């Protein structure tokens, strides 16, 4: 059969065309095009890569057989959350982010990509309503990146280097912050073992005029709602520190927006808003702040500002670019690269579909099923629900120290029943012993919980 392949993705790999073009550029062969690359920089011989599957048939079979080695949350009942969430993704979200135009656009701007720019403006506008703030930046890499940037903003705003945050922060986020804010001092505040809330006494003790910011998550990583949020904000402000709140956007139909209890900067994970998990591919970061010059000038991400021309047309322009590293290289506030535009557009579609009532129902359903799960699990012999006095949103911690079993064992057994048990916290928080972080979403049904309870009971008590 043909030896020389004409590649479907490479139109000019047709021999005759290639020859014609080589002639036009005056090269005798393709190798000549690379003559400016010195010999010592060249690859010797050829690369040792897997045999090409040039046909789409072979490629599809090959990749699909690999993917079939995975078991997904569509096949299992999932109780994993901990930063990436199994929310329902409306079909319209998939439709829009699958549109060729959005999927394959990039940094084209105001005119040719008017639609994309408007969708991005709508994203920031919709997030603005959700968090009740006026200034929102284009989505960042993930919620952790937003948290890191928020904290760095606090540093730039206050000139101070100390960050106060709760001990119950996730190890993943802690590692991110340790890395991104390594020049700052991160100090952990104790939390109440019955409610999960921040220990205000400890906070008051540790806060000082060195404190750049107090950072809280609401709900916290361990699932509890931070009831003292407003007081924490007040304490922060009394000490001249910024108050940063990381939110779960899926809670904001029912839970107060942080700006209304004092937040200066709001961050959070975008993925719950209509984006598939994709093994973590769906993450994105929310970032919003006060409509004040110093905040705006310190936010490093793109702003697509609305502009109205004399014909009454709206256009959208990347604005105040001097802040960004694209424009000012090392003088920009932090670095800025390609982030997650497609997820911003997807979240815009999601919020437009949901509206205020949808977001309300979302929060409502999660609260009911979450509390049901918490209560039911707590009734299992050998299960102890942590932070019982506190309120939860969609996650909560169970402890099984009394059963003498480990979470690892239990989860393996649940796996046999096609259940992904809660995230094992035993390595993450030694103080919590054999604990797991369980997560529900609006997709979780009462019968899922009942089945879980039945299986857990069997595993622990027989």
């Amino acid at each position, binding site marked *: 059969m043909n030896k020389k392949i004409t590649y479907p993705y490479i139109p000019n790999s047709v021999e005759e065309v290639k020859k014609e073009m080589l002639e036009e550029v005056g090269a005798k062969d393709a190798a000549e095009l690379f003559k400016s690359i010195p010999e010592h920089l060249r690859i010797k011989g050829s690369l040792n890569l897997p045999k090409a599957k040039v046909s789409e048939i072979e490629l599809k079979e090959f990749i699909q057989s690999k993917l079939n080695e995975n078991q997904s949350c569509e096949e299992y009942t999932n109780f994993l959350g901990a930063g990436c969430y199994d929310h329902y993704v409306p079909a319209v979200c998939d439709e829009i982010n699958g549109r060729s135009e959005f999927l394959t656009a990039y940094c084209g701007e105001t005119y040719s990509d008017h639609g994309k720019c408007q969708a991005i403006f709508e994203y920031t506008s919709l997030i603005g309503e959700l968090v009740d703030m006026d200034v929102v930046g284009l989505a960042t890499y993930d919620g952790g990146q937003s948290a890191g940037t928020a904290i760095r903003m606090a540093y730039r705003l206050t000139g101070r280097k100390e960050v106060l945050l709760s001990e119950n922060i996730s190890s993943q986020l802690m590692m991110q912050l340790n890395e991104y804010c390594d020049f700052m001092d991160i100090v952990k505040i104790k939390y109440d073992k019955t409610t999960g809330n921040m220990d205000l006494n400890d906070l008051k003790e540790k806060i000082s005029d060195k404190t750049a910011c107090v950072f809280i998550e609401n709900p916290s990583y361990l699932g509890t709602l931070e009831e003292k949020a407003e007081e924490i904000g007040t304490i922060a402000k009394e000490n001249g520190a910024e108050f940063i709140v990381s939110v779960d956007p899926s809670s904001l139909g029912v839970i107060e927006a942080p700006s209304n209890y004092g937040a200066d900067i709001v961050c959070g994970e975008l993925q719950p808003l209509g984006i598939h998990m994709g093994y973590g591919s769906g993450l994105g970061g929310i970032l919003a702040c006060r409509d004040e010059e110093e905040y705006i000038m310190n936010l490093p991400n793109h702003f697509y500002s609305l502009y109205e021309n004399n014909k009454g047309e709206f256009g959208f322009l990347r604005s105040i670019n001097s802040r960004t590293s694209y424009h000012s290289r090392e003088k920009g506030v932090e670095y800025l690269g390609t982030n997650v535009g497609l997820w911003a557009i997807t979240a815009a579609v999601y919020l437009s579909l*949901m509206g205020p009532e949808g977001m309300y129902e979302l929060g409502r359903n999660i609260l009911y099923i979450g509390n049901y799960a918490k209560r039911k699990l707590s009734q299992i012999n050998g299960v102890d629900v942590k932070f019982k006095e506190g309120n939860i949103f969609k996650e909560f911690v169970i402890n099984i120290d009394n059963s003498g079993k480990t979470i690892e064992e239990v989860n393996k057994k649940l796996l046999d029943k096609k259940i992904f048990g809660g995230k094992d916290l035993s390595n993450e928080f030694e103080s919590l012993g054999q604990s797991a972080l369980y997560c529900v979403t609006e997709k979780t049904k009462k019968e899922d919980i009942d089945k879980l309870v039945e299986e857990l009971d069997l595993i622990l008590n027989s």
Partner: protein
Amino acid sequence: MRDKKLRNFHEAKWDEPIIFELSTKGQRGILLPEVEKDLEKEFGELENLIPENLKRKKKPELPELAQPQVLRHFLRLSQETLGQDINIDIGLGTCTMKYSPKINEQFVRNPKFSELHPLQDEETTQGILKIIYEFEEIMKEISGMDSFSFQPGGGGQAIYSNAAIIKKYHEDQGEGEKRNEIITTLLSHPLNAAAPHTKGFKVINLMPNETGYPSIEDLKEVVSEKTAGIFITNPEDTGIYNPIVKEFVDIVHEAGGLCVYDMADYNGLFGIARAKEANIDLCHFNLHKAFSSPHGSMGPACGAQGVTKELEKYLPVPRVDYDGEKYYLNYDKPNSIGKLRKFYGVIAVVLRAYAYVHTLGEKGLKEVAEISVLNSNYLIKRMLKEVKGISAPWGNKDEYRTEQVRFSWEKLYKDTGVNTDDIDRRGTDYGLQGYFQSHHPMIIPEPFTPEPNETYSKDEIDEYVEIFKKISEEAYENPELVKTAPHNAPISYLNQPIIDDPKDLIVTWRVYKKKKGIK
């Protein structure tokens, strides 16, 4: 067949309101299930489940639309967008706007991938872990580096991660304080300056000379015992390959610094030249460029970060390892810089890149390099020959550029008063996405940086040349036409305001309403 050089184009123009303007109180785009009766019975009112002071007092003022209207709105916006799939997307040089095979979208949209939670028991994710593992092997071969992480969510984050490793490395050498300077070149992507700076380094930018790259002397002048490392993009945005890069590397190494290659623009070099041969310590590739993942209106993306054996221990965690029986996520890397991102990374992009390399193989990837460079030089040849007012500054005229080039409209501007912004906008009237001019600072006047990668046909490149021939003619004959462009776009010229005062910033509809006094 029919002899048509230019198309009579008009982009879809829907004059579509802002989504908030389409709201009707009470409409619903989607419903959620009702609360199961038993649960309502068990807990009573919703209020019982929320602490009083955390109850949302006023529902978010999101727009209220029914589902067909939400869909229609965003579909219309999509039509007002010129993605790579639909336009001859040669203009966005340095971005490698190549075809992203549709079959790969089926893979990432398969629930066997899209519905994976990153914390699932590894027993249930062997397929995807294997893909990551094997793709690391592939990237090692392509680059000659010893180890890869795919955690960075884009090129910028990969550069940042490289800076973080350099910092950690010198700290481990006890030189953390001392080595606080990073050198880069002015034509390297701005992130090569910004990311190290974000990591805490002082940054020195080397200017190019007429060759297109800095001289050895310039480099020597700034290298010192403070040098932590150098970040080089090669080829730079001009498409000029720096042939003395090895000498650069040697000089920096000698001074105790580490050398980083920015291989985001690798498309023209597959199978030709690698980081390894240049003795590089760290590098990164943009999988969303040369490896064909779609750019997604600016991400999600993946910066594949490669390092030498010596630096492997610093890579972000987790890494994907294989114990002879199964693949697993390894967090046990005490020297790691830690984490840049929750969980592993944008694995969707890795999955696509994996499929892409598998379908092309060694020969196919080399063909990518050859044709992308051929396309580029063909474009340059025709442009310089046929388009009045354009030039390609710097470089050795006898040599070929790599996969891209930076042109200048300086002469045309001087002759006609039409500048690169005007030409850029006018391109849209012929069906082109706005083009990439240059990063800042724009040291080449009136710049324009096209990159006709291997996925465009000769016919398309010819059409592209014809368009700029035509626009150049227009600039000479009827400059107003070009200056007031676009005329066939979704919106007309905005008088190009630059919004640089925070007071003028309107990034939310609520601010617009406030400014206009609308309730």
